[in-house]
């Protein structure tokens, strides 16, 4: 197939890093801020950023409904951090009026790993990824509190305060989400994984 065109939601956040990572993973990458720009892409990345800001701007500029329609119609989407929150059907510790696009049957707790002083990086095994573990950079990061039956868990980190593990990467159908930021590491394997998802969806 031809090279897929993948948009990066560019309302706020680390858009540039995702554009670079997608280009390195052999996709055509372009920023998306308007409904007509969304209509032109095959798939979308929702970047890290401040989820309350991104959500508010998406509503104000008429993107929230088109985003939901595209997700319902099967458009592949990858969300990192704030983007994971945007893909969650349910969020905890959000603002009362905070809307999400939804699509993944999961409950995500915002800022679950704590404030910036608790932000961390660590090596994590990622299901289906060959080679070295992925370096997870977690910044005021959310975690997935629970998932529905149709959701595949791709990565977990040990909980700091007990025997449990925290879910930090999931996939449901054409939707992928990570609590952490592969776009900050220079390791493009997670973006390559997503580009392969986009190619498979187009077949």
């Amino acid at each position: 197939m031809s090279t897929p065109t993948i948009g990066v939601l560019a309302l706020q956040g680390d858009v540039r890093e995702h554009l670079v990572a997608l280009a390195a993973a052999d996709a055509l990458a372009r920023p998306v801020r308007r409904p007509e720009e969304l209509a032109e892409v095959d798939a979308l990345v929702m970047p890290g950023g401040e989820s309350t800001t991104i959500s508010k701007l998406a509503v104000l500029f008429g993107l929230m409904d088109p985003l939901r329609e595209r997700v319902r119609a099967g458009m592949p989407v990858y969300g990192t951090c704030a983007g994971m929150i945007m893909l969650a059907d349910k969020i905890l510790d959000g603002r009362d009026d905070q809307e999400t696009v939804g699509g993944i049957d999961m409950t995500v707790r915002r800022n679950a790993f704590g404030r910036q002083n608790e932000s961390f990086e660590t090596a994590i095994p990622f299901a289906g990824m060959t080679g070295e573990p992925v370096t997870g950079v977690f910044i005021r990061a959310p975690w997935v509190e629970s998932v529905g039956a149709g959701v595949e868990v791709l990565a977990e980190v040990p909980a700091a305060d007990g025997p449990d593990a925290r879910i930090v990467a999931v996939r449901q159908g054409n939707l992928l989400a990570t609590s952490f930021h592969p776009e900050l590491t220079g390791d493009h394997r997670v973006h390559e994984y997503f580009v392969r998802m986009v190619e498979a969806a187009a077949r």
Partner: protein
Amino acid sequence: MSTTPTTADQPQIGTARVKRGMAEQLKGGVIMDVVNAEQAKIAEDAGAVAVMALERVPADIRKDGGVARMSDPNMIEEIIDAVSIPVMAKSRIGHFVEAQVLQSLGVDYIDESEVLTPADEINHSDKWAFTTPFVCGATNLGEALRRIAEGAAMIRSKGEAGTGNVVEAVRHLRQIKNEIAKLRGFDNNELYAAAKELRAPYELVREVAELGKLPVVLFSAGGVATPADAALMRQLGAEGVFVGSGIFKSGDPAKRAAAIVKATTFFDDPKIIADASRNLGEAMVGINCDTLPESERYANRGW
């Protein structure tokens, strides 16, 4: 400079990547000065990506005079409790104990700021010694790189805080961008002398020459009062803006704050900026910078 855990399973906090990465998440956004929980909520409602907690906005620091210091921990904690977005707070230049206190309060970023009265006229704080990341002001590339060498994880062009006049913000951002562009044109032989001229470490100078940008996020600050001001700074190359007195010294802070957020995202769309600029009520009055005596120019603080 960043440390990468390749084999270690232990999570690492406070790495350069985690500190700089936090600023990457703020890009395209507006960081607003607030003096209490109520203002912090207005800022969050308007779509701010973070708030800067301080006792007096720069316009009032100018008016009141005297020594300006770190804010009361109670007031900072009230703001932390009131909002879910990141909270920043200011320490005096070189006052590493104020910075230690701010870190212990759990603020998300420390601004070692010229808006407060400097505590040390020679040294800035050693910012590598902290888990909490720092943002620092700069008027030119050399100053920015000296702060990064000391551990700053984010830079803001200084402008002239509390004036409501964007002229100094433009001057400083242009200066930094022009000096970066100049470095891009240098060959390797010239970078050593450039480092000497800039009074900055050679390794950082070489990194900037290669990247064509600072190795950390660059915001603009000091004088933004309108949506068009914010969009101007973005078009000039700032990755986001700090707005201090401009919002809560204006007629309708909630409306102006939301308008500046919109104009910062759609900084290259004059129609959206025009819509955002309608019926905002009174802007802050503002000060002409050429009538400011040298001693009252905050941008001169820091070295």
